């Protein structure tokens, strides 16, 4: 033996009767049990991968992660108290995904707003091509921590926007910044990315 003795020497020197049967013979039901459990685990984890999709949206909703903005009804904001002395600069930016024959831009680039008050603005979009196209804009707010305080009561981003060839339109937004917006934030950027809908005419999932 080695000089360093094993503490558990007594446990492991127990005499064990040696089975004459090959170990594999009597164990097929045991194997099936393990296979069943492990397959269930792997199928369950495959499902968990998909379950992360709704979970992700829920977590983003709660935390405002990813700059996903909320939608509120007009009634719920009417009674909010207003701090008239506070001023927030709201910047509007736009981008077009993967190019395309579009004009898409905010009508005003910045606004100075008071939290708790309702404001209106709009974006201008023009389809430069001859074709009928359905588009959709997705919003994002920066900094992320401001996202859940940036509430929109009306937004063109809520619905898909159809465009005939060579047409343009003004697309309105009505928003209100929650007065609970952390005091260290004095500038909020609202960004829209304009996408061609993946399936023209089919409701996106």
């Amino acid at each position, binding site marked *: 033996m080695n000089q360093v003795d094993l503490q558990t020497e007594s*446990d492991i020197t127990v005499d064990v009767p040696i089975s*004459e049967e090959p170990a594999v013979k009597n164990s097929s039901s045991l194997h099936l049990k393990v296979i069943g459990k492990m397959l269930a685990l792997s199928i369950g984890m495959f499902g968990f991968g998909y379950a992360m999709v709704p979970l992700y949206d829920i977590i983003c909703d709660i935390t405002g992660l990813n700059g996903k903005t909320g939608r509120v009804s007009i009634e719920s904001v009417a009674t909010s108290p207003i701090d008239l002395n506070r001023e927030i600069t709201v910047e509007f930016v736009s981008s077009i995904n993967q190019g395309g024959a579009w004009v898409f831009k905010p009508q005003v680039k910045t606004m100075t707003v008071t939290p708790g008050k309702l404001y209106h603005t709009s974006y201008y979009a023009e389809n430069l091509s001859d074709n009928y196209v359905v588009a959709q804009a997705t919003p994002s707010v920066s900094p992320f921590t401001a996202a859940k305080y940036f509430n929109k009561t009306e937004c063109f981003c809520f619905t898909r926007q159809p465009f005939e060839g060579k047409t343009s339109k003004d697309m309105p937004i009505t928003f209100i910044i929650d007065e609970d917006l952390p005091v260290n934030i004095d500038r909020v950027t609202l960004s829209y990315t304009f996408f061609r809908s993946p399936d023209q005419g089919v409701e996106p999932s």
Partner: protein
Amino acid sequence: MSSNDVTHHAADDHDHDHGHDEHGPAPGLMRWVTTTNHKDIGTLYLWFSLVMFFIGGAMALVIRAELFQPGIQIVDPMFFNSMTTMHAIVMIFGVVMPAFVGLANWMIPMMIGAPDMALPRLNNWSFWIMPFAFTIMLSTLFMDSGGPAGGWTLYPPLVLQMGDSFAYVIFAIHFLGISSVMGSINIVATIFNMRAPGMTFMQMPMFVWTWLITAYLLIATIPVFAGAVTMLLTDRFFGTSFFNAAGGGDPVMFQHIFWFFGHPEVYILILPAFGIVSSIIPTFARKPLFGYDSMVYATASIAFLSFIVWAHHMFTTGMPLAGSLFFMFSTMMISVPTGVKVFNWVATMWRGSMTFETPMLFAIGFVIMFTVGGLSGLMLAITPADIQYHDTYFVVAHFHYVLVPGAIYSLMAATYYWLPKWTGNMYDETLGKWHFWISTVFVNVLFFPMHFVGLAGMPRRIPDYSLQFADWNMIATIGAFGFGFSQLMFVYIIVKCVRGGEKATANVWEGARGLEWTVASPAPYHTFETAPAIESSTVTR
């Protein structure tokens, strides 16, 4: 050592087929196609990963050759990107994982006194899926639109813009996943049900323990990856919008799902290495493994923690402060059980009667250089620092230190350690030591400068770079070619050993303990058809 007096001499017949055994294998090539023998399948896995090691290595040399000097000299950027992508996929799924599965096949039944794996036919299938999957994967390089070039992490939306290779790559990944999950189920069933009577869980060799936990990680995470790539597939071909912002999806969500798989995956690539090193160091220090129980618990803690750290790969995607802090601290926490392991290995060597045969050299090299990679990982865990290091060569240096002188060194150590048991012949010790020292010099010449260019801001995955990074890149490329070509020695030593050499005793190493050393060298085609008695001399702890 009391086990030393077990001296079965190798049979005179050194025919590679071990034809002297009455239950020997069928002759001819069909043996390898139809085999359900754990040793044959282990051998197939190991040869397969050795071949893939050179394919993946050749890709790495294309990358390093292009980076020898600034500017675009040798390959066009698209091909460069497909080289970085394929190098990663081949090395992870084609080299390290199959090699560990091959070792598991060979060694686990022999270590626990079982006659074979629990599910031998499934085992055959697990292996034979792989060559087909990789044929599909590698064939994309010859397509007009080129191979996958969006990085092995397959981030959308870039990956969705891939050419025809996209569907092939997803299909191959599904196959590889099925192979891994089946192999893992087999390993779990073997360890649970086929241990020799009397062998408790806490008497199993560490390699068996680390593989049991690795198998659980594989079964729990590979299906998540399969789900993620299936979502990519439906996004591309069936009009879903999981990751397409235009349809209400979110590309960042892919990163969350991917790294929920991806982080446990990196422990899949290292936990069996911990098991190998925990087998080798006690043998050559001639002392039992220090802190066996803590090794088991540390392995389990690492496996658990690996599920709650994934977002440290995504600090720069933006997340709330609480999220950054959580993922930073949970990541740092992993260094505690890993540190326990490193200190246990050092304590095992402390005052041991150490000798430095090739397996021990590779194992010690592993401990030292894996720790270097671990420490740079700790630096990357610090959120504000990571925002600076993210996607630079510092990250490349970090994960290559844990994977090359980490996982790959453990595989080389395992090969030298068990090769006499597999072939019945001793390998050439002098050449083995040369192989170690040449590899170790070049691997550091290759990867250490990447720390410097990374901290200086050189981005990864780009075929061209600014002039100030030129010197260190040239040195790294010299190291890469030195390391790459010195692996030809490894093949030469293995082939030489398979073909003949000094006969190995059953015990092979003076200090070796465990059931695999109680059978003859080479191990007979069938071992432990009658379960062995478990005695203190054969228990490795």
